[in-house]
């Protein structure tokens, strides 16, 4: 830093460089030209008389764009929060390294657009704000991209996620970019108004709020999960009194009786009953259970595909699965933690007719 020389320049002048320590208003620009090389600059300009007046302040070392601090704090906190929101877990996505890179880059772009918005307004660059709209279009593409990719990958899954689960994941990816944009906007705005410390404080608060919100509901919030007895009635496979399917062949029956585990999910109320009735939600349950506990199945043994069926009388839902891990306790735990899909969540009790009919 000490090697930095200060030269006069007739180029762009930033307000930050309009003062000197002695208070004199001097138009000058700090350049990276090493002081040791003197003034033998390629341009061959006149010797610099203020070269001794080196000021060690970041804002004055470079040509600092307006409101750089606000934008910087906004972008960094936004990108960091995007990184913290990227979950790499059993859902196996986006554990792919390239997925992480893609989403971090998009998160960075979102953070930058958000962070630049308020400084742009302050500088009366109103057209710059229209870029927010452009960004929104861009992030809708993210949803499309995720949906297509997950749908393609789903064909390779022994137990598919199902379209509802995929739609849910894609929607989350899109929404998180908006969330980051908004976070960066707030953080940069606050930084501009106060200083970087207040900006960082807001970033932490927003991160905590985000972590609270992103969890969402799981099966354990809407239903009781317990084990059920697996048995056959002729060729019909049952868990307790829920009929699953007709299966031929004694050898298949033996595998089910020996290794199969039945799970019963009992909804707490009519809202949960309607949610569990959703086929996409049920596919999500079987996918997650199979992903966590392992599945005793290959492409040519379709009879061991986990199934989720519904008891028409009570709205209870049963799951039959032949897991690799014969651990009922953790299978129940896995089912309890299946997320409630946004598309499956229904609340008939909140309507007049639904509420009255349930009485």
């Amino acid at each position, binding site marked *: 830093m000490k090697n930095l020389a200060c030269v006069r320049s007739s180029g762009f002048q930033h307000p930050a460089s309009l003062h000197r320590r002695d208070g004199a208003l001097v138009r000058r620009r700090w350049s990276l030209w090493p002081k040791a090389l003197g003034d033998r600059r390629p341009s061959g300009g006149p010797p610099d008389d203020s070269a001794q007046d080196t000021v060690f302040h970041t804002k004055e070392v470079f040509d600092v764009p307006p409101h750089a601090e606000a934008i910087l704090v906004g972008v960094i906190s936004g990108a960091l929060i995007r990184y913290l929101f990227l979950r790499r877990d059993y859902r196996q996505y986006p554990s792919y390294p390239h997925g992480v890179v893609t989403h971090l880059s998009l998160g960075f772009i979102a953070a930058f657009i958000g962070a630049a918005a308020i400084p742009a307004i302050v500088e009366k660059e109103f057209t710059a704000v229209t870029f927010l709209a452009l960004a929104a279009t861009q992030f809708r593409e993210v949803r499309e991209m995720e949906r297509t990719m997950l749908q393609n990958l789903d064909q390779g899954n022994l137990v598919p996620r199902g379209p509802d689960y995929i739609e849910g994941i894609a929607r989350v990816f899109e929404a998180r970019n908006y969330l980051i944009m908004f976070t960066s906007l707030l953080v940069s705005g606050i930084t501009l108004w106060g200083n970087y410390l207040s900006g960082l404080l807001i970033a932490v608060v927003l991160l905590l709020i985000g972590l609270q919100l992103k969890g969402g509901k799981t099966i354990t919030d809407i239903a009781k999960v317990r084990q059920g007895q697996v048995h056959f009635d002729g060729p019909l496979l049952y868990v307790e009194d829920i009929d699953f399917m007709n*299966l031929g062949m004694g050898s298949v029956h033996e595998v089910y009786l020996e290794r199969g585990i039945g799970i019963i999910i009992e909804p707490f109320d009519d809202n949960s009953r309607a949610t569990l009735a959703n086929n996409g939600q049920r596919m999500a349950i079987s996918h997650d259970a199979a992903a966590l506990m392992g599945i005793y199945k290959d492409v040519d043994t379709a009879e061991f595909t986990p199934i989720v069926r519904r008891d028409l009388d009570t709205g209870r839902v049963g799951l039959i699965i032949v897991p690799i891990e014969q651990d009922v306790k953790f299978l129940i735990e896995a089912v309890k933690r299946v997320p409630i899909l946004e598309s499956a969540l229904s609340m008939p009790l909140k309507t007049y007719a639904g509420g009255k009919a349930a009485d």
Partner: protein
Amino acid sequence: MELEKLILAIITQDKEKVYGAGAPVFLAISQEEQDKIALYLARITEGVIHDLENGVYVLVKH
């Protein structure tokens, strides 16, 4: 609307029980043979064997 379930084959010990089928019918002479044919066909076609309880197995693609 797309047809998702399809009977790929019928394995029976009694050919009187099956009539005018759109799927190939495999005639077995014993329970063991019926099971064996059903199992092989299930593995080959990636279908699931269902028992109609009258000595007829159907192989269904799900």
